C-alpha cells in the first residue's frame, strides 16, 4: 500500500514547465532518494508533496488524501509530513527548545511539559540535548540541521521530506546529519530525500529516482541504478558525480 502516490504531476512557474509528467509510488517505511542535475525539478517535486508549491496539474495522494483537492485540509496533511530544508530555516528569534515545541503546542495542543519532554528526547536522539536553551545563531550548520530534523520529528510525522539537507553544510558536518538520517531510516520512517550524497543514496536508499528535465528518467534499487544505468542521461550524470 503506497503512502504517497503521484499521478501525472505537472508544475509550471509562469511559462516555464518544471515538472512535465511525474508518476511515482512510495510505500510505507521506504527510503527514496531523488538525484539529478540542478534544474531537473527534484526540489520542486519534493515541495509538491506537501503542497509548498501549488500544483499545476495532476494528483498527489498522501496517506489516502488527495492534496490537490481544494477541499482537503492541507494544514492537517502537513502535520503528517515533516520537512527539512537545505537552509535549515530555524526560527532565529526562538531557542532550540522553542523551535521544537512551537508546532506541537500550537498545532497539536500539547502542553508545555509534554512538548518539552518530547523535545528533550528528540534532542538526545540528534545528540544536542545541551543546546536546548541556545539560539540558532549559536549553533554550527550541522547542529542547526539536526535541530531542524528534531523540530520536524516533534510533530510525529508519518513521512519525512529532505530537501538537499547537507548541501549547505561544511564537509566535516555532513556526516553527523547523515548519521541521524540513517538512524531514522533504520527506525522505519518513510523518507523522500533529494540529495547529492550518492554514498547515502546507495547505502540507505531502498530506491533511487533519477530526474532530468522535469521527468523521472529512471528509477531502480540503488545497486542497479548506480552500477547498470540504462538511460544515457543517467550514465552521463553518474559519470560526472561518481
Amino acid at each position, binding site marked *: 500500500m503506497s503512502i504517497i502516490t503521484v499521478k501525472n504531476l505537472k508544475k509550471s512557474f509562469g511559462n516555464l514547465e518544471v515538472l512535465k509528467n511525474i508518476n511515482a509510488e512510495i510505500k510505507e517505511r521506504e527510503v527514496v532518494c531523488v538525484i539529478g542535475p540542478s534544474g531537473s525539478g527534484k526540489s520542486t517535486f519534493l515541495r509538491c508533496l506537501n503542497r*509548498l508549491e501549488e500544483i499545476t496539474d495532476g494528483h498527489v495522494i498522501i496517506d489516502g488524501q488527495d492534496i490537490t483537492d481544494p477541499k482537503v485540509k492541507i494544514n492537517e496533511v502537513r502535520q503528517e509530513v515533516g520537512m527539512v530544508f537545505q537552509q535549515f530555516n530555524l*526560527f532565529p528569534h526562538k531557542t532550540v527548545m522553542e523551535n521544537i515545541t*512551537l508546532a506541537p503546542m500550537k498545532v497539536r495542543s500539547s502542553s508545555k511539559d509534554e512538548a518539552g519532554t518530547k523535545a528533550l528526547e528528540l534532542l538526545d536522539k540528534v545528540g544536542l540535548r545541551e543546546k536546548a536553551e541556545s539560539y540558532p545563531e549559536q549553533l554550527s550548520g550541522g547542529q542547526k540541521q539536526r535541530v531542524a530534523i528534531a523540530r520536524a520529528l516533534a510533530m510525529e510525522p508519518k513521512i519525512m521530506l529532505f530537501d538537499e539537507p547537507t548541501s549547505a553544510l561544511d564537509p566535516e558536518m555532513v556526516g553527523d546529519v547523515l548519521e541521524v538520517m540513517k538512524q531514522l531510516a533504520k527506525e522505519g520512517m518513510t523518507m523522500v530525500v533529494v540529495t547529492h550524497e550518492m554514498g547515502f543514496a546507495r547505502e540507505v536508499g531502498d530506491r533511487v529516482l533519477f530526474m532530468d528535465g522535469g521527468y523521472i528518467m529512471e528509477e531502480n534499487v540503488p545497486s542497479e541504478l548506480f552500477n547498470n544505468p540504462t538511460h544515457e542521461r543517467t550514465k552521463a550524470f553518474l559519470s560526472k558525480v561518481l
Partner: protein
Amino acid sequence: MRVDIISAAFPYLMKGLQVTLYIFIIAIIIGFIIGLVVALLRLAPIKPLNWIALIFINAIRGTPFLVQLFFIYFGLNSLPFISFNSTTAGIITVAINAGAYFAEIIRAGIQSIDRGQSEAARSLGLTGFQNMYHIVLPQAFRRMLPTITNQSIISLKDTSLLSVIGIADLTQQGEIQSSATFEAFKIWLIVGIIYFIVIYLLTLIANFLERRFVLR
C-alpha cells in the same frame, strides 16, 4: 521680572504638552493598528483587498497633512449625522496619516523576512495566521523598529499642525503665551526645547527597545 512672565507661561505650555502627548499616544496606537491591518490587506492573496490598501496608502501619501485635517474636521463634520470635536478630528487625522506610512513600513518588514521561515512554519502545519503571529511578525518588528521610531517622531511633530483647528496643544499654547507675554523669542525657544526633549526621550526609549530586541 521677565523671568516671572516666562515662569507664569510655563504651566500653560505644560498643559499644552499634555494635550500633545495625549493625542500623540492615542493616535500612534490606532495608527499602528491601521498600519498593520492595511499592510496585511496589501499582502493578502486577494486582489481587491490589495487595491483597497493601495488606494488608501496612495490617497494619504499623495495629499498634504493639513488638507487631510481640514477634510476630516470641516469636510466630514459638515455631513449629516456626523459630528465630532476638534480633538477627535485631530486624533483621527494623525492616526490615519501615520497608519498609511506604517502600512508601508510593516509591509516592507514582512517582505524582508526570508520565505524559508514561512515555509518551515507551514510545513509544520501552522496556519497562515499562526505563521504571521509567531514567526513572521516578531522577526519583522525587530527589523522595523528604527523606521517605526522615525515615523512616530514625524507624527509627533505633525500634531503641532492641529493647533490650526483650535486644539490647545503645545504649539497652540505657545501661540497664546507668545502674544500674551510679547516674548515671542523666548516662548518659541522654550516650545522648541520642549518638543526636542520629548522627541529625544522617544529616541532613547526606541534605542533601548532596539538593543533589547535586535540582539536576540
